[in-house]
């Protein structure tokens, strides 16, 4: 178990900068998820930590060693690939023992390491099989087994679940999480799936365009996104955004969404008055058939999606689309006119230009 520290970590291909000045400390035993849209640099960052990708600037420490210039094998890390990267010509046992064999570990030690890992992962019956004779989930487990037998300082996961079907993905998600709770090895997990990040990680690092947008505990990020990007990326169905006018009113302020709807708000930190980007999560809205006092917006129902567990309703007012999420089963249909209420203490306000949080 070791902490990982990245100092001013950067990567560029020629003049094109992929990662710029990443500073991040991952505590010993922590499970951290790097999440972001494709092309945000999260995989590159992971591969740089692994040593598979050259580091253009900055340095990295694992435990108390600076490993910036060390080869991957000397960093004492293990990696689980998206494609699993199992050696197709070797049995499960040989796949798992490959690294120990290369390190000339005694045969008995290799056997016992393989056996304990395979018991932990439920692979005992499959040890003599070739990877081609395994299902996707089993291959995934072997890939993890191969990482575990090494007893590395850090586990690196590169989108390990994206080749699995939806059901298996949910199952493996909890298996990886419980495995981490057992062995408590520092883990860095790259995913583009924000649900995976939310459910598994102790801390989420949201990345965008080669920068860290926000790092924090999953629910902190969900409840207080520091930028419009994070607000829109984390959460499914995604947060609703619309523009409104913010005006001061004595010691407080208010926003005007349209002529009918005005919402009072506490004073903003940086903005006196002007256009702001409002965000509100679909579950922080409510619907009524009658106009209620206060801040109701008259909207039209476009589509109703019942999922059983919940109902997702797509609404519109003007050319603005709104998504509404409820665990009830509202008695409405397409074309109905209803009234939408916003919980004012759940409103997120962002700067229209920088996208930074205002309230």
């Amino acid at each position, binding site marked *: 178990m070791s902490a990982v520290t990245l100092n001013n970590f950067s990567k560029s291909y020629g003049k094109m900068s992929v990662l710029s000045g990443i500073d991040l400390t991952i505590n010993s035993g922590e499970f951290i998820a790097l999440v972001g849209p494709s092309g945000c640099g999260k995989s590159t960052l992971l591969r740089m930590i*692994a*040593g*598979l990708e050259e580091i253009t600037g900055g340095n990295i420490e694992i435990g108390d060693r600076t490993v910036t210039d060390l*080869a*991957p*094998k000397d960093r004492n*890390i*293990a*990696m689980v*690939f998206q*494609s699993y*990267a199992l*050696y*197709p*010509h070797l049995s499960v046992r040989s796949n798992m023992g*490959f*690294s120990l064999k*290369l*390190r000339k570990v005694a045969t008995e030690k290799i056997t016992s390491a393989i056996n304990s890992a395979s018991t932990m992962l439920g692979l005992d019956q499959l040890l003599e099989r*070739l*990877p*081609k004779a395994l299902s996707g989930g089993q291959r995934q487990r072997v890939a993890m087994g*191969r990482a575990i037998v*090494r007893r590395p300082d850090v586990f690196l996961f590169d989108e390990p679940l994206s080749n699995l079907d939806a059901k298996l993905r949910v199952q493996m998600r909890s298996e990886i999480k419980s495995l981490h709770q057992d062995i408590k090895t520092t883990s860095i997990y790259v995913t583009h799936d924000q649900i995976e990040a939310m459910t598994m990680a102790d801390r989420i690092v949201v990345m965008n365009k080669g920068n860290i947008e926000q790092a924090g505990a999953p629910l902190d990020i969900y409840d207080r996104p520091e930028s419009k990007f994070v607000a829109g990326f984390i959460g499914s169905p995604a947060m609703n955004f619309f523009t409104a006018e913010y005006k001061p009113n004595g010691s407080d302020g208010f926003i005007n969404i349209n002529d009918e709807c005005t919402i009072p708000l506490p004073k903003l930190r940086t903005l006196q008055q002007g256009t702001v980007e409002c965000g509100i999560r679909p579950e922080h809205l409510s619907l009524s058939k009658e106009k209620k006092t206060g801040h109701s917006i008259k909207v039209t129902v476009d589509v109703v999606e019942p999922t059983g567990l919940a109902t997702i309703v797509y609404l519109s007012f003007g050319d603005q689309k709104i998504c509404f999420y409820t665990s009830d089963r509202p008695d409405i249909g397409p074309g109905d006119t209803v009234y939408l209420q916003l919980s004012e203490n759940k409103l997120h306000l962002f700067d229209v230009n920088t996208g930074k949080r205002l309230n």
Partner: protein
Amino acid sequence: MSSSASTSGPVISSGLTPPPTTHRKRSFKRLAEPYFYLSPALMLLALVMILPLVVGLSYAYQNIELLNPFDRGWVGFKHFIALESDRVFWLALKNTFVWTFGSLGLQFIFGLGLALLLNQAFYGRKLIQALVLLPWAVPTFLSGLNWAWLFNPVISPIPHWLAALGILNEPYNILADPELAIIGPIVANVWFGIPFFAITLMAGLQSIPKDLYEAAVIDGATLWQQFTRITLPLLAPIIAITLLLRTVWIANFADLIVVMTNGGPANSSQTIASYIFSTAYKKLDFGYASAVATVLLLLLIIYAALLFGMRKKLLENSGN
């Protein structure tokens, strides 16, 4: 075809539904159908492959000398018995092994080396890949003449260089040396055959996922270990099949020898293939040439059977 269909068709008997005769008719139709579709190809194959092969094999048991047209007819195993005491045949057999495995081994080693180099990313790689194929595109007749000249000390510096390096005592034409003559065509053949190995092995290399090498690097494999533990085992099936194909081609390949040494001096560089050629088209003794060809065919069939067995094992052990 028809007999096997009528006797071994799947018999479905339920006792209630239509009488068995219709079943038999239907199953015959079903069994014959693929052969019907294949028949144009099969007939063509029979016409251009099987028929000439049978006729050619039958020559081995006949006297067919164009210079002696009145002494024709079946002679049984006479030619095969004559082979046993034919000094040139045994020399050619030995030369065939030297020629085949000498060329093959060097082509393979250099071809694999070249494939590994070309599989690296570097500027101008596409161009180099195309250029590498050139020797393969030059007509063998021309390459043979070229190489014959390159070994000629009157017009080529190569023998002089070899002498200067102390490899030769003096700059002379090795093609005229009974001890060394076979080396000339082997060198030409290696030059000619490297591209084939390089290109096929490169295709094989490119089919190995990059992830495996990254996983191996993290597992602690050195470059050499990556080569021996990942590249070679995953390339083995393709290596086996290219080696097999090339062996057969090289063993049958007489052009370079005929052009460069014509089997000489004094038959010293004769291989079975060039011996067949000169027996048939210079001595015009087709019967004897066919007997020699039959022996070569048998040897190649045995070799192919061995290698196919090996390949099957390799495929079973690999992930493909």
